[in-house]
């Protein structure tokens, strides 16, 4: 169990990247969803021990890991949002070195293990190639390979699917799902589908504040019978936005396929009730939060701490 309490991070500026986040993350996959600049990466970096918070605590199975990050690192698999490797090394060499630093071994030996891990992330064919010749997706897969190496109790993956093609994304899903069976896997993403596919529970964060902690089914269930879908012309969309709560508007073959949220069951003509998606729930949550922030900003004088400016 990973327990986060009252986590605050203020960057010089000052910019409040996290404004008192408390969260309990049980074993299994847990998603952290939020728009760009919500503070997800700051949160993940603090959890990974790379960034000191301004205040708050983080405990892994009851043990404070902020005071002694080394204790955390020995149990951590971490895939940061942005990272690189030594460009002149081969993938195999790089992974072997990281395995050494992590103290990861296997009966077949470290070299064989590195090869097997590369196989798991579908990089065997490039094992001997220099990393500077790797594509973004290949680098991401190597990052995943090192993150899943060993037997970490906590795995933190920050935007892991960025740069992956659909098939690699599927592969990653499966790997993470397997890992999450007996440990905590914290997945940070702004792609709702990632959470929908993988996470039994997730939290939504925005402007450094926690908006919700729920499960995809709960989130969807709350919207049951309130989501309608229909098609409108390009000229009608603005009018629709002004009068209805549009959750999504997607161009499909040149026409706008629009989903709206209607609590009172009176959709516009041509709209039919459809099953809600997690994306509907997430976007509605964002709209509401945005509206609240707008109201608060108009009501309150400018604060000394400009909230929600995102990670610098």
């Amino acid at each position, binding site marked *: 169990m990973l327990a986060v309490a009252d986590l605050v*991070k*203020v960057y*010089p500026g000052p910019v409040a990247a996290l404004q008192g986040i408390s969260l309990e993350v049980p074993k299994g996959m847990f998603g952290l969803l939020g728009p760009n600049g919500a503070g997800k990466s700051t949160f993940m*970096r603090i959890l*990974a*021990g*790379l*960034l*000191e*918070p*301004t205040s708050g605590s983080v405990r892994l199975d009851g043990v404070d890991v902020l005071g002694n*990050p*080394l204790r955390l*690192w*020995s149990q*951590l698999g*971490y*895939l*940061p949002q*942005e*990272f*690189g*490797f*030594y*460009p002149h090394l081969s993938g195999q060499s790089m992974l072997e*070195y*990281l395995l*050494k*630093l*992590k*103290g*990861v*071994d*296997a*009966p077949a030996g470290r070299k064989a*293990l590195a090869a*097997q*891990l590369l*196989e*798991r992330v*579908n990089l*065997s*064919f490039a094992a001997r190639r220099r990393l500077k010749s790797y594509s973004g997706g290949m680098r991401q897969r190597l*990052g995943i390979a*090192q993150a*899943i*190496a*060993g*037997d*970490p109790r906590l795995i933190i993956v920050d935007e892991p699917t960025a740069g992956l*093609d659909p*098939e*690699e994304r*599927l*592969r990653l*899903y*499966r*790997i993470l799902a*397997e*890992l999450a069976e007996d440990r905590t896997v914290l997945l940070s993403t702004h792609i709702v589908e990632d959470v929908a596919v993988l996470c039994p529970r997730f939290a939504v964060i925005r402007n450094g504040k926690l908006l919700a902690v729920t499960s995809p089914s709960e989130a969807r269930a709350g919207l049951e019978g309130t989501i309608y879908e229909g098609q409108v012309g390009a000229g009608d969309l603005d009018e629709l936005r002004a009068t209805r709560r549009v959750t999504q508007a997607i161009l499909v073959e040149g026409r706008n396929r629009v989903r709206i949220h209607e609590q009172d069951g009176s959709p516009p003509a041509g709209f039919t009730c459809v099953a809600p998606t997690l994306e509907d729930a997430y976007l509605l949550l964002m709209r509401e939060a945005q509206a609240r922030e707008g109201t608060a900003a108009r009501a309150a004088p400018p604060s000394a701490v400009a909230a929600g400016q995102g990670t610098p």
Partner: protein
Amino acid sequence: MSLARMLMVAREDLKELRGRPLLWIWLFILGLTAFGLSHGEVRISSGDAAVGGTKAWITSEFAQGQTFAMVGLLLYAFFVSVLAGMAVIRDDELKVGEVLHATPLLPGEYVWGKYLATLVGSFAVLAAHLAVTMLIYQLLPLDNADELRGPFALAHYVRPALIFAVPLILVVSGAAFLVGTWSRRPLLVFVLPVALLLFGAMFLWNWSPSWLDPRINRLLMLIEPAGFRWLNETWLKVDQGVDFYNKSPIPLDSGFIVSRGILGVLALSCVAIAQRHFQRTLRGVHAVRAAGRARQAPGAARLARLRWPAGLMRPRARRPASDTAGPGTGYVAGSLRALRMQSHAPGLITGIVDVARFELKELGSSPGLYLFVPIILLQILGTSLLALGAFDTPVLITSGTAAVRSMNTIALLVAFLLLFYTVESLQREWSTGLAPIYHTTAARTASMLFGKAVANTLVGVVIVFATFLGCAVAILIQGKVAVQPGPFLLVWGLLLIPTFLVWSSFVGAVFALTRNRYTAYGIGLGALALTGYLQTTGRMSWAGNWDLWGTLLWSDMGPLQLDRPALAWNRVLALALTVLFTAITVRAFPRREEDATRIVHRIAPGRAARSALRLLPYAVVPLVAIVVLVVQVRSGFQGPAVRKKEHDYWKQNLATWKDAPLPAVRFAEIDLQLEPRRHWFKVSGAYHVWNHRDALLRSVPLTGGLHWESVSWTLDGADYTPEDRTHLYVFTPPRPLAHGDSLTIGFSYEGRVPRGATRNGGGLPEFILPSGVVLTSFRPTFVPLLGYDEEVGIEEKKNRYEPKVYPDDFYQAVLEPAFGSQIPMRTRIRISGPAEYAYNSVGTLTHEEVSGGRRTVVWESDHPVRFFNVVAGRWKTRVGNGTRICYDPRHAYNVEEMSRALDAARLYYSRWFRPYPWQELKLSEFPALAFYAQGFPTNITFSEGIGFLTKSDPRTELAFLVTAHESAHQWWGNLLTPGKGPGGDILSEGMSHFSTLLLMQQVLGERERIEMCKRIEERYGDRRQADSERPLVKIDGSRPGDVTVTYDKGGWVMWMLDRLMGRDAMLAGLQEFMTRFSDGPDYPVLQDLVATLRPHAPDPAAYDAFVQQWFFQVVVPEYRITQAGRTKLAAHDAGAATQGPLWEVTARVKNRGTGAMPVQIAATRGERFPKPAAARARQEPAPSAPPAQGAQPGSGEQPVPATLPASGVSTAGVGAAPGAPPAEPPKAARIGLTTSGSPAEPFAEQRATVTLGPGEEQEIVLRCAFEPQQLVVDPDALVLQLKRKSAVHRF
């Protein structure tokens, strides 16, 4: 290419530069340097050093030129390299490149914009530096501002900056920019400033041996980017006079201007190449080529690949991702559990090993290493092979001397290397983006840091090993000394490795604390600069000398015996500091980004103190080591307590005792006990003093050693307590001493030499060490000094006073001797010590016994002496003809040659000057804790670095030279002691040089004489200070440049006088001089010699003219050949008498210097002197053999030098008196011999003689029967002149 976009790139870069610590550190260091130099510590060596004399201004254009050239290479090169070399690399690291290059910005605009920003930034720094320099140099209050500063002129600052700094900035920035853009490796960027430092400051600036071909010298001047070599060789090396330096702008020559232009073009070419490379690689030229190859594949195959698979038209069945296979198909080969991974946090040692192994592999693949190492090796080999000893003689290197000599260089260079490697290896994870992964691994921080440190230190070790191989090769090339790894292991292993460790850990700590690569570089460079400053200004001590720069002296006779405890504690300090810095690094290493708010809390005094307390255990050992070292230094013989005592001695006694009349010691009886292992001695003895003066002497002062303990005195056998005036003991007998009265002062004391540690290593002139003992009566080290010691308590900048000014006729009075006893005395010196040592002193050994493990010897003077010494060692002996050489068994390399010189000296000097009155002439070797040789009567002492380790070869028999010089002091110094006053020292040192010239010509031949003349002439040219130089009769050794005038000019002028008078007349005069002045009571100076020789001169008028010019004035000619040409004459022009074609050489010869001397100009072809093998074969028999036929003992007659060409080159004008009409030049060419003796390449020459006064010019015409190759002024080295190498014209 859009100029606007290029400027935009430059502007953005410049904006960013303003916020970078690098810029501010650079400016800070430059400001600090300007402040440091503004006090006049570094200035042009010119001007009159005397109080009130014109000094060299620090504000002159020349002074600023020198400063900008030096600072340019030492500081600008580094910072400009970083700025330019990292310009593109930084963008890579910041990952802005791809975004930038996805815009319409062209590669050319980007590259040139970046370079422009570098240039503008560098020039802005230069402008700021100029402004600060002007402010500080002109306005900073200084005590001696009037002497140091001239009137302000903007050009004095701006012009040197333009001449020296701007081209350097251009070329360095261009080259570094190319390296950085091409390689994208930061480490390679640093190769450039290091290479410049090595080849520039350590090689090109000062490597200018006398044998260097002027054309090569010129080339080196032009390629050196800072311009310092050009400035030095062209204008500074030979002093042009302070007025010139203070007021003249730096005259530029066309070659230099063109070379600076070429540097500029080179810089722009580098940027152009960088642009081309950048453009080619920006979008992946290889990928493009591969795509091109793919396009050439058969069309059908391509179509097949492009065909849409039919299966995909159907809806895809849902299947698990694990069902896929192969690259890109999404197949997962089994579960992770199947891998059975285990993990456990790696231990400290395992982590260190893993990191170190990886880092070493990294370093192994780093091209920087393969560039740095050869550069360092070349440098070290160069310094080892080109090392110079006494009289600029090349040194024969042994393992120990090679290890110590190269230690400073290795320490400095590896420090640079470690600075770069440590910072870059710590920075690497951030630069590559690996940091978030790397730093969240389970490896301990200490493992990461130690691992990197170990790997980097191993680089140092590899360099040291490579250097060892290099030194071994150098030693093997010399072919005389065996290579021994022991000294290398001791010096580099035990002493140097801790330097690497402490420096690496310091750099690591700085990086961890500052968390910025450039700040770490700045602080690292600042630390090196501060260390250098403290060391060069003499402010360093054992407690701070972490790199042991300049502290060690090696002796094969007993390594590192002088300061062993201090050295050991110093290394303990280095190692302990390593631990402390490492602890700081481990704590502060930024593996986790700290929160700003928490940092503020942490640096609150209470918490900061608690943090510091946690580091206290690591600081205990360094603190203890520092305290121990401080105590050792302060209580040592160079510590403040001793300095105060010395100052008190000076203060209390100067006015009363400085010129007090003294009696003479008639007999010195010394009983000396020695314990070399304990540095201990005990003396009991007595001086029998005698009043040889007419006046009454009421008291007798003796100066005792400050290090003496248990001192007791007697007066005429009774216990006596003299007045103690801070170790000047005043004895007042019951009744004053009348003329002829005598008394006996007895003394007894013990002490150690040295007592305690030195301040910061270095050598000692006198010592008692297990490796050897050297004690003299010159200073109150082991015996009291009669009278007041003028050297005690004098500090150069505090109370050094100028010597007494004597009237012109002072020599007509009765002068006291310049050194030693007032009248010759007799000595009886009994020495006892461990039996394994031999003990030498002055006189003859009258008794020797070994009993109870102790040897006791008694030396008694068989002819009176004026001073005495004791030297002891564990020697081997070579007995010659009335001579003996006592040498360390490991140093037999030159003993044969030295013995030959000693025998020849005894034989010929006895003939030429006066018979040697003592029974034996000894020469003893002592450990190289001092680099001097002293010619005590019968007992010459030589440092091992002089003669014994001189690199002699058949061509340049330098061991012969130094032995001949020191042997000459038996006559010029001992038998004839100069009088006290100006012109005295020349009778000792100048006459010894002259004697050496005579002996070399006599024994070795004309070639060696010419070589020595050229060597000492060049030394004079390099070291003279035109404004300070006084006529020979006024030289008293007090001014800078006096030494070279005393030795080199003095010897040369005597040689010219010898040519003027003729050898027989000269020697007859010298013999008379020796006879008249040997026994006092009037001791002579140069005027006495001039007066004595005059009656012997064949042409008194010419003699007077010469003497007036060379002894009473400061003159030195400087010849130049201009408008030289050679023409092949038609047969009818040449006349019927000649055979074959004739050549006519025309040229104008000018004397740009002073003085008027007849000088020969020769058109030559071929090699004049045979090669060494042939020279050897035709050398004269050993000097112990009977004199050559026709030469009579005592006469100046000499056989024809053996190395002259068979036909002889006793050319026209040689030996001719000045003013006399020059003899007709020989009409026919002379033929020389080659090595084999066959006339393969005949030597031919044609000469003419001209006499040119100051500024005079004359046209010469020479007709030759051969095709001349060059025109040489003064081919026989008969006229002392400046810049002899420039007085040659090669056709």
